[in-house]
């Protein structure tokens, strides 16, 4: 008997990406630069988050031509984003042969109340979360991988750190809670009880956890890996910097050797200018991306 699209297969692909860097790319040429630098996967986009933020308007799934061009350019897996709740965009992405779908707050949400039913798909989904309850709701809907949301396109890691810490704190709280408290914890988290019990027993999410949103330097990658991320997404931070190939490679090395300050010191030198960052206080609340999703 042969089975496709099982939990094991979906979550398994995320396992294969652990310890790696997933890079946002907008062309076949950028995809090849990312692969050459050692990326474990690329995220095929029409615009990186920094440009989406600057240009405004409705941000949608990328042009299928663009995605196919990137799929054909590399041997590593290709991810692509659909809007929150836009299951038809997700169906298109699956039909195009995309290996992983990111139901992403970086694009303009298509549904203000519901996310995509991710169990209905053969390909795996990654979803963003700002805290444990949100992570477990997405896993309950079928997400095979979780990432922090961060504040994409800012080059500012502070929000991603907040989300990672919040997820970690939530897990530690469940680990020490007596079993009779877990139902109330589930209620307060807004999360499925069975998943709450699973996390309390295992001390970790049942799927791989990556960090995303605002990473710009090798030290940023090391910071979030030391805080418990199992790998990183880098968006605007690479192709909005002065020397993308060099920076991409340095972030890969920092992710592998995140515990080794000697390696970090070496790879952090001579990288040229990082992307110009944004202070969160300069972004009006209504323009922030992380609160999108429910």
């Amino acid at each position: 008997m042969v089975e496709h699209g099982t939990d094991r297969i979906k979550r398994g692909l995320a396992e294969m990406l652990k310890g790696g860097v997933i890079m946002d790319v907008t062309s076949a040429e950028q995809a090849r630069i990312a692969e050459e630098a050692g990326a474990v996967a690329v995220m095929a986009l029409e615009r990186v988050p920094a440009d989406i933020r600057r240009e405004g308007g409705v941000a949608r799934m990328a042009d299928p031509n663009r995605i196919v061009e990137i799929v054909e350019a590399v041997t590593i897996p290709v991810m692509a984003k659909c809007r929150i709740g836009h299951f038809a965009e997700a169906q298109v992405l699956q039909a195009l042969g995309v290996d992983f779908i990111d139901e992403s707050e970086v694009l303009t949400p298509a549904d203000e109340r519901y996310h995509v039913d991710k169990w209905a798909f053969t390909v795996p989904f990654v979803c963003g979360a700002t805290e444990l309850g949100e992570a477990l709701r997405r896993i309950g809907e079928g997400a095979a991988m979780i990432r922090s949301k961060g504040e994409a396109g800012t080059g500012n890691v502070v929000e991603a750190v907040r989300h990672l810490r919040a997820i970690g704190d939530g897990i530690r709280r469940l680990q020490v809670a007596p079993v009779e408290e877990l139902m109330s914890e589930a209620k307060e988290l807004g999360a499925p009880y069975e998943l709450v019990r699973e996390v309390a027993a295992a001390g970790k999410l049942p799927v791989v956890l990556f960090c995303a949103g605002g990473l710009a330097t090798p030290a940023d990658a090391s910071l979030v890996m030391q805080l418990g991320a199992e790998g990183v997404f880098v968006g605007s931070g690479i192709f909005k910097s002065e020397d993308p190939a060099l920076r991409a490679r340095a972030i890969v090395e920092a992710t592998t050797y995140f515990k080794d300050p000697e390696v970090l010191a070496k790879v952090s030198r001579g990288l040229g200018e990082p992307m110009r960052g944004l202070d969160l206080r300069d972004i009006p609340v209504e323009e922030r991306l992380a609160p999108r999703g429910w």
Partner: protein
Amino acid sequence: MRPGVLALQGDFAEHRRALEACGTDPIEVRTAADLEHVDALIIPGGESTTMLKLVDRYELREPLVKHIEAGLPVFGTCAGAIVLASKASDGEPPLGVLDVAVRRNAYGRQRESFEAEIDVTGVGIVPAVFIRAPVFEDPGEGVEVLATWAGRPVAVRSGRLLAIAFHPELAGTLAMHRFFLEEMA
């Protein structure tokens, strides 16, 4: 006997857990110096293109080949199997220590990834998870095909090297790890 798991990238933690469940005390291998301390090595699943680039960047290719030629038993799963092969259909060149070619992503993209039960010579029937998996082609003399799927080799062995296209570490079975530790290491 102390086994190691190459820990540059991929699901090395799952292999570590499997080795611990087999009653060994494994270490994670990230440098040439770490290699000196292991009697057997697992090269895990991951992204083979990335893993081979990291092997070169961190100057591990030569030490790995040297230890393998000196008799280090190695078990490669999926990406780890590609790392051992003599040549790959595309992408980064493998170590070339196992006389078999590999075709990357032989079944297609992620939506074609699958689970099945595989009959492995010397092991029996094992649950197998194939994720963007390769297949083996043109096994050389002295390379024994231990299992096939749809007529194509998915598990091979030569001397102290064992290479399989699937992931026992994700399938909740220790049979392949036990086979490697007991029969080959």
